[in-house]
């Protein structure tokens, strides 16, 4: 009985490993191609935003604001671009709730990257707002005066 279990396990392992190996192979192959393709808003989000705003964009109660159904994300594009460039540490209620954590400046991101991640945020997590272009980010950056952090 125990031996049979072992066989089942081994067979199971083989079957589950085959697709894994295949995945690894394709990943390795596709990497240079991905590097050349357009900037991924999702990739930027996962690298710089997800830790605080969470995988579902829902934020953290009392600490990090959600990115869904929120005026700062869906409304004025200039204000939103400035939040990414300058960070955010204002003591204000956002749609009736307060959030305590400081958002650091992300001005090290390229115009294209900021445009991509903001477009991603405005079109995901149930959001359906229009895109933000690289030109718009560029325009805000040139006139931007650092206010926070």
């Amino acid at each position, binding site marked *: 009985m125990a031996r049979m279990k072992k066989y089942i396990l081994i067979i199971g392992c083989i079957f589950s490993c085959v697709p894994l190996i295949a995945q690894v192979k394709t990943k390795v192959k596709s990497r240079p191609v991905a590097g050349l393709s357009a900037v991924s808003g999702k990739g930027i989000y996962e690298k710089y935003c997800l830790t605080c705003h969470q995988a579902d964009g829902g934020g953290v109660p009392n600490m990090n604001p959600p990115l869904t159904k929120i005026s700062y994300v869906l409304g004025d594009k200039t204000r939103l671009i400035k939040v990414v460039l300058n960070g955010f540490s204002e003591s204000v209620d956002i749609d009736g709730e307060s959030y305590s954590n400081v*958002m650091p400046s992300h001005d090290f991101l390229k115009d294209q990257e900021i445009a991509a991640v903001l477009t991603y945020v405005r079109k995901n997590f149930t959001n359906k707002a229009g895109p933000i272009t690289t030109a718009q980010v560029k325009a805000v950056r040139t006139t931007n005066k650092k206010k926070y952090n």
Partner: protein
Amino acid sequence: MKSKLFRLMIALAAFAVSITLYALKPVGDVIPDADNAGLKLPDGFGALKVAETGAKARHLVVTPQGDIYVKLARPNKEGKSILVLHEAPNGKAELKSSFGNYGGTEVALKNGYLYASSNTEVFKYKVNDKNEVINPDQPEKIVTGLKAGRQHETKSFALDNDGNIYVNIGAWFNACQEKDRGLHSPGIPGCPILDSMGGVWQFRTDKLNQSYGEGVRYATGLRNMVGMDWNQQDNQLFVMQHGRDNLNSSWPELYTTKQSAELPAECLYALKKGDNAGWPFMYYDQIQHKKIQAPEYGGDGKKEADAKYIDPAMAYPGHMAPNGLLFYTGNQFPAKYKNGAFIAFHGSWNRAPEPQAGYFVVFQPFKNGKPDGNWEVFADGFSGSPEKTAAGRADHRPCGLAQGADGSLYVTDDSKGTIYRIIYTKK
């Protein structure tokens, strides 16, 4: 014949006494909810939802007369920030009154006074012989003018037996960086804010309007504490520090997301006057069992910190947010719980993209005033499901802890405002 009658009388008297005693013991009438309030508890324990406050219920205190004072993070719709609930014999409570107009976290009852804090001040209210606040609109201000940032702003405190109050003044930074939480942002040299925050300040409970000038910086190098309690066994202050965040997001070359989810430890510290726990210059790594130099101050994840910083009394996995600490001195629970610590872990967010953790109440065994043996999850299920825990989308988030006069354990939830009571039901 005479002796028979005498014996009968004795038996009757004993019966009467036992009935009276039974009636005096409130837990006798308290019935756990059919589903134990949705909690998963050790064998022999039950739980009930005492009340649904619908508010951000932070810390609480329960009087022997069955009143429950609940401190709210923000004033409610009526503009009140301390709720007074009263328990019926079955354990369910109704709102009796409310007062105070300042948000905050802490509330405590000692020697004829109710103590409560805003995010910058500490107040006390005289209570009558039924532990009811006599003049809710005119508290005495004992501490004022404490610094408060937008983060770590709450002023938890603990009271000793000699008329002192120990107040947390949390640092308004994550790790004292030049750009708070910023990528590759270095630490501010010497972290000068430690002169007025990032530690525990000691004040007197019998003096009014004290501020930094009148207080003593009792211990420093502590980022922020929400759970604090005085250990009666060895007459010492214990605190649960909220450890720093963002190891990976500020220093992605030094820490993987997996390491950053586990590190640093959430530390239990036993504090003596003059102690330095090392924030922001170091953190405690519970996997290496070492004090590690912070990356903002020259660390690389391996370099050990200066040995002058104190060691934690116990270390728990990272980011679980210990918001309540209570030494259990009651007699209702089995003997192993006596003088041990309950810790309410509010639940993590900074473990993302790894699964979140916490949202439970832990029991830490103690012996002679020191942690002794492994911690265990005591009450789980606040979040609603393991999936909700992993996603950080908890239904309820345990925050404050209190012990009832009968030895019941009370837990607040600052998400939906549920007040829980955990009782031992096995005879």
